[in-house]
């Protein structure tokens, strides 16, 4: 047993009254409230380098970011791709995803899109083929298209916002959905606004052939 050091014991010391929450934000100790998570879309312009997608998804899982979807695809510039992430995090978490992504060397620019952003998702779903007319009617209702129809299955595609797709899927449930493939949301800023900060300088007019 060791003797220890001198000085007033913990209980004999003055202690401050203040407190922080789990996010390290100072709070009124009386009304402790955890910040609400918020669902939002981040767009990242990235260099087309091998492993970029693996690096991004590795970052997201390693840091336990709460992610709904991640999509990737080419842009007007053959050297870059766009990654769109839908996340659900409290405010500090959103800023963390943003800055940690921006820190990756192959990420050129990252931005959280406003609520007015244009967001789209595609779902392909396959239902049992028993009632083709009804399936057709619902597909029409959601502005979708029939991709394949046979005696046993019908496959349709619907594009829309997140809510629209959720509603459509609900509507198709009556036909017994066999399989679903959803792309996850992709998005652009609305109007003349560029989606991320580096977008304009990287913009390349598609070549006329």
């Amino acid at each position, binding site marked *: 047993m060791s*003797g220890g050091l*001198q000085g007033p014991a913990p209980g004999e*010391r003055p202690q401050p009254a*203040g407190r*922080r929450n789990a996010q390290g934000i100072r709070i009124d100790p009386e009304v402790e409230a955890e910040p609400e998570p918020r669902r939002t879309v981040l767009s990242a312009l990235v260099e087309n380098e091998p492993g970029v997608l693996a690096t991004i998804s590795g970052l997201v899982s*390693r840091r336990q970011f709460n992610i709904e979807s991640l999509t990737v695809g080419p842009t007007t510039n053959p050297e870059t791709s766009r990654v769109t992430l839908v996340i659900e995090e409290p405010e500090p978490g959103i800023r963390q995803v943003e800055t940690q992504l921006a820190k990756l060397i192959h990420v050129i620019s990252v931005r959280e899109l406003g609520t007015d952003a244009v967001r789209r998702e595609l779902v392909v779903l396959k239902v049992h083929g028993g009632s083709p007319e009804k399936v057709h009617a619902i597909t029409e209702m959601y502005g979708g298209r029939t991709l394949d129809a046979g005696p046993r299955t019908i496959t349709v595609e619907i594009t829309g916002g997140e809510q629209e797709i959720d509603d459509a899927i609900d509507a198709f449930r009556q036909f017994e959905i066999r399989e679903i493939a959803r792309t996850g949301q992709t998005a652009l800023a609305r109007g003349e606004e560029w989606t991320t900060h580096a977008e304009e300088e990287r913009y390349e007019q598609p070549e006329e052939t």
Partner: protein
Amino acid sequence: MSEREMSERATPHQHATDAEASAKDDAPPEAHTETEARSDATATAEPAADAGSTAPVTTGAESVTRALEAAGVEYCFGVQGGAIMPVYDALYDADLTHVTMAHEQGAAHAADAYGIVSGEPGVCLATSGPGATNLVTGIADANMDSDPLLALTGQVPTGMVGSDAFQETDTTGVTTPITKENYFASDADTAGDAVGEAFALARAGRQGPTLVDLPKDVTTGTTDEEPAEGRLPETYDPPERADEAAVAEAAAVLASADRPVVLAGGGVIKGEASPELRGFATEHGIPVVTTMPAIGAFPEDHPLALEMAGMHGTGYANMAITHCDAMLAVGTRFDDRLTGGVETFAPEAEIVHVDVDPAEISKNVHADYPLLGDAGTVLAQLDDAMGDTAVESKPAGNTPAAGDAPAAGSTRTNGNEPTAESEPAAGSTSRVNDRYREWREQCQQWKEEYPMDYPRPDDEPLKPQYVVERVDALTPEDTVVTTGVGQHQMWACQYWTYREPRTWVSSHGLGTMGYGLPAAIGARLAAEDDQSVVCFDGDGSFLMTIQELAVAVREDLDVTVVVLNNEAVGMVRQWQDGFFEGRRMASEYPWVPDFETLAEGFGARGFTIEAASEVDSVMGEALAHDGPSVVDAHIDPGENVYPMVPSGGSNGEFVLAEEQL
């Protein structure tokens, strides 16, 4: 061979000095280390006319070694093996010294320590597969501590990648989460470019480890391309100067605080901002607390120094960070060993957070006033802004800090002489904020209330704290200390008085047992010849990398290892006593080797100390020995480390003895 012997090349230190001199000529006085670092990079990366080997590049491997030469690399540490053999073959003619280590982990730690002491990335090499995976611990360690490091690994030929070939490991995959960036060299023409970029990136902005994986067909492939100048990636642009409006706001917060404290993090040392920190704190009279990696950033014998805070920090540092109403945190990531539970961390403080990495802002603790930029630059900006808000405004045109403080970039200046009295002299430091006087007195009072004095019997059992204190007394002030991980590491923090940056070399964020000895090897080669290097090791930690003693002997390196031998993994034992009802599972051993004999077997000098009365004479002899020596100090196995903040606890409730847990 003759080329190698005849070549004359500037050391990295001289390079740095030259670059600084030229940078200062045409730069405004507030120009800071980042700029200097950059111009330094450009200077050293110029086609190396003086870099010895001038024969044209013929292979990818040669372009790799040429890139290292061009970057000014003097030493590299590694272990040979199949896939890296072409690079080693090119090293045969290269103008740099390779140190063959006993184990790749040792190579990574040696390179890491070399980077800490010199400020330039340390370089380590390993073959593919097991060589690369053996580096992993050291790379992860460098990543946690933001140490500049470049790892070069061999890889199976490109055509075999993905086939589970002999000694194939997905090295870039394995190291992605623990590197700042890694590269897979794709062809002989660009292999050297990748190495140059990886080196430049490791040392820029927030430093960290980078890795280049080199498939064997790429290194053996023919090329006549000289590697390009080591350039930073286009997308990498660390902030330099903080936003002026944000600086003004932050300065106003500090100026109107009653109980401000500076929390210096490792970024202060990495950013060469110790002179600015000293200038800022002394000029405004603000007490300074450091994190563990920042030990040495501020002289611990200065009246404003409260030393290290956190889990095993001093009582007074923990009181100050708990009761402050404003905190200027510089270059710190608010690690949990520092903060304890964030709920109780500096709960009444407005936090100004200066960092070069935007991702550190509000990651763990909310920053009320984030200031993005280089540590030294932003401290100077803040100093300026504080001047504007102070009662006595300073004369216009007077550049802050830079004037009174030692030149930025020099690592081995003596800093400000500590003043004898706790109150900075009034005349010379007219901006010392009188507002903080009471707070400074409070901090001094805490120093008296919570002294680090430990109970010590006359002779036996030998107290580890006493050993550390005596070795400190017996060695010059600029001695470099390295450590393993455990209780001994904490005693080395607490009972040694650090005065200079880059004299404390340890494994902070990862807590890697076995770091101490290989780190001492790297530190030895980076330190000035007249500097001493001492490694405080634990018996457990020492046994993890003891084989590197062979390297120290072979290379005739003057390092002194002091094993604070408690015949236990003592830190674990302390936790078991405190939190596991004293059930000492796998923490005490019935037998430990005789380290004195073991050292002699390796060809080093070995010594044993049993009692306090032997410390001075034995340590004197060991330190005087010009070569590696090992001192096995049989310390009190029951000794514990205090103060202690149990993990997740409140810093203000540090315990001073076991019964307070």
